[in-house]
């Protein structure tokens, strides 16, 4: 195999701290490489070192050879010149990487016009959009498109650039089953066209679908690497096994329970935004100790339905009936993006203290709950920005569970967490539901997850 991208003994450090140590890997034509690992394992830093976008104060040593040129020896200007011509990046959150002031066709056309210098850029862009099924959205701005559409537009742009090396950073994040299969097919096509593909993900299923070689990273080191299929079928390292076991498809099924009386019920709910009707005459009931999974494509009104039940939005028609005698604070919500639900300048300890003061909570109970959720006491001094997504989501859970909730609306609460953290948060929810009779509305687009966590599922549209 003639590998065209060689990473040799790459070490990334900031000050005295070593973030990635002695990382070596190779990507060949037709043999994509997938870096697997949880957030904070250093896999994104490897991609940033290849791009040359490491944050200030973070330095890389070693060699990164792209077709014989050592990228780390090049100056910043020379490296920038490679972007979009030799190295392409499919960013993690496509909608933040797209130009918010430019329509879809314009974003694609400018690649043809300025990178390739084509005169018929408009026609090429229209063809490219049609190819990813966005022909109808050509005149849309990014904010008018769903996450999946933005992802496909970013892919079309990356495809149009036609760089020999394509880096994909968590490309399946936030995509539902059908969109993910579509993404895999498109990435496979790029590989077959002879482009070098390096994918960064914590999605074991995506790694398996892409094939090639895989490398599992933990704390800045490659703990195991090899052909993807063999690595995932016969993992040698304990961490690889844990990562595979954390994939929802591999979870044990939830034992059937006996649901209690209804906690919350919506009857005849209708909601529309302007002329777009989300749902009409919808009836939903959740019982104590029951987990109801709510599935549906993005934009189908899953979050709106949950918000109506938890009381932060009003339905156009219909009524929500809550269990009598339960205080309003016992109806709670978990958010998709954990940092967004915390005040950035407040330490976790302050946030908990304020909550304890507001509701006269017992400090011993808080300490006990934090220990149960594996949140060490020293995290109390940290601010939300210094915690990982998994830790923050567990803090959010602790905050909510302290109020003895009877109903919890978990809005894609695990979709931004890596598999190990996702599994932990899901376990806590299952436990709270079985032990305390918590009724949960669990919004997810992951069919495997829905099947494993919930007692029953409903799908919107």
């Amino acid at each position: 195999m003639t590998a065209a991208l060689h990473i040799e003994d790459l070490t990334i450090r900031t000050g005295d701290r070593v973030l990635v140590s002695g990382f070596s890997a190779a990507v060949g034509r037709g043999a994509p490489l997938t870096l697997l690992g949880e957030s904070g394992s250093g896999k994104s830093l490897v991609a940033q070192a290849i791009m040359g976008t490491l944050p200030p104060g973070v330095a890389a040593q070693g060699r990164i050879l792209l077709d014989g040129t050592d990228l780390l020896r090049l100056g910043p200007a020379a490296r920038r010149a490679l972007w979009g011509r030799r190295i392409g990046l499919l960013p993690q959150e496509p909608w933040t990487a797209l130009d918010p002031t430019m329509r879809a066709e314009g974003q694609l056309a400018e690649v043809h016009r300025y990178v390739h210098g084509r005169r018929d850029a408009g026609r090429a862009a229209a063809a490219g959009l049609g190819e990813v099924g966005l022909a109808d959205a050509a005149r849309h701005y990014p904010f008018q498109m769903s996450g999946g559409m933005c992802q496909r537009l970013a892919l079309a742009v990356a495809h149009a650039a036609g760089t020999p090396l394509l880096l994909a950073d968590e490309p399946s994040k936030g995509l539902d089953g059908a969109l993910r299969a579509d993404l895999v097919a498109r990435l496979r096509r790029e590989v077959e066209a002879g482009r070098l593909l390096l994918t960064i993900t914590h999605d074991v299923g995506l790694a398996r679908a892409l094939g090639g070689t895989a490398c599992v990273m933990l704390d800045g080191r490659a703990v195991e690497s090899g052909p993807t299929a063999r690595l995932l079928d016969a993992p040698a390292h304990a961490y690889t096994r844990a990562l595979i076991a954390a994939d929802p498809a591999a979870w044990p099924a939830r034992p059937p329970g006996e649901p209690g009386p209804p906690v919350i019920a919506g009857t005849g709910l209708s909601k529309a935004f302007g002329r777009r009707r989300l749902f009409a005459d919808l009836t939903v009931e959740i019982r104590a100790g029951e987990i109801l999974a709510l599935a549906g494509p993005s934009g189908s009104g899953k979050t709106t339905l949950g918000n109506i039940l938890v009381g932060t939005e009003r339905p156009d028609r219909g009524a929500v009936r809550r269990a009598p005698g339960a205080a309003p604070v016992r109806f709670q919500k978990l958010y998709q993006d954990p940092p967004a639900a915390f005040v950035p300048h407040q330490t976790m300890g302050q946030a908990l203290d304020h909550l304890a003061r507001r509701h006269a909570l017992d400090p011993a109970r808080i300490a006990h709950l934090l220990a149960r959720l594996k949140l060490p006491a020293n995290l109390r001094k940290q601010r939300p920005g210094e915690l990982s997504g998994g830790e923050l989501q567990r803090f959010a859970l602790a905050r909510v569970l302290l109020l003895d909730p009877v109903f919890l609306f978990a809005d894609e609460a695990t979709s931004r967490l890596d598999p190990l953290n996702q599994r932990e948060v899901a376990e806590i929810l299952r436990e709270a539901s079985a032990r305390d009779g918590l009724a949960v509305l669990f919004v997810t687009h992951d069919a495997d997850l829905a099947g494993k966590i919930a007692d029953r599922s409903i799908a919107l549209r």
Partner: protein
Amino acid sequence: MMLQMQGLAGPDRPAATAWPLSRRIGLGLLALLAAFALLGPLLVDADPARQDLSASLAPIGSDFLLGADHYGRSLLARLAHGARLSFGMALLTMLSAAVPGLLLGVLAAWRGGVAERALVALSDIVLALPGLLLVLILLAFAPGHFLPLYLGLSLALWVEFFRVARTTTARLLVEPRIEAARLLGFGTPYILRHQVLPEIAPLLLTLAAFAMGTAILAISTLSAISVGLQPPTPELGSMIVELLPYYAEAPLAVLMPGLLIFLLVLGLQLTARGGTVR
């Protein structure tokens, strides 16, 4: 100005940039000038209005530390009093623009509806008038008096505070953390105190420095064209104009009030820059 404000309202502004070098230099400069303005009149025993025609245009270092003007009044005393006047008026003007601006802005974003539309319309009307024109209209009622000058400046300056407070609050109110705080049982006062104010405060500090700079320049400008404060009040702008005919004999006496205005505004601008430049 508005664009600048929205740019620095980004969610992930690192805390380390809250006190960059420019802001520290600016605050240091302001502290020195404030000490001069506050302590100067106490330490220098001279009356800024006492004339000694025999010492007309006395040079620096004679009986008078910084020399004397054409009426033989101590320039040191006049400069210290002038600095105190400019500083004090700017501070007062800024406060009476910032407090209503902030309160109305938060109120507009919070209540929405008719209240918001009425307040926005009012602020747009004020914004459409040139600030100095507004001050001149009010000064026409009582030329040379302090009150209309102060009222006019405050009326012109509150709009910026209002607009920044309103857009920032409106942006915050749709964030999940406010919804989360409500669900967790926290009331409006808590959310305002712990979630809205800490986000607006750094922006207001920047705006406040700009507003004070604007006020100082406006007061000096208006006094220099003899519609603001009138002689013999030791006002920096009118001092320049009074001394201008004697530029050939005592150039430093003319330049010193100007230098003081420059340093005051520079200190304020540097303080404001700290919040805008990363």
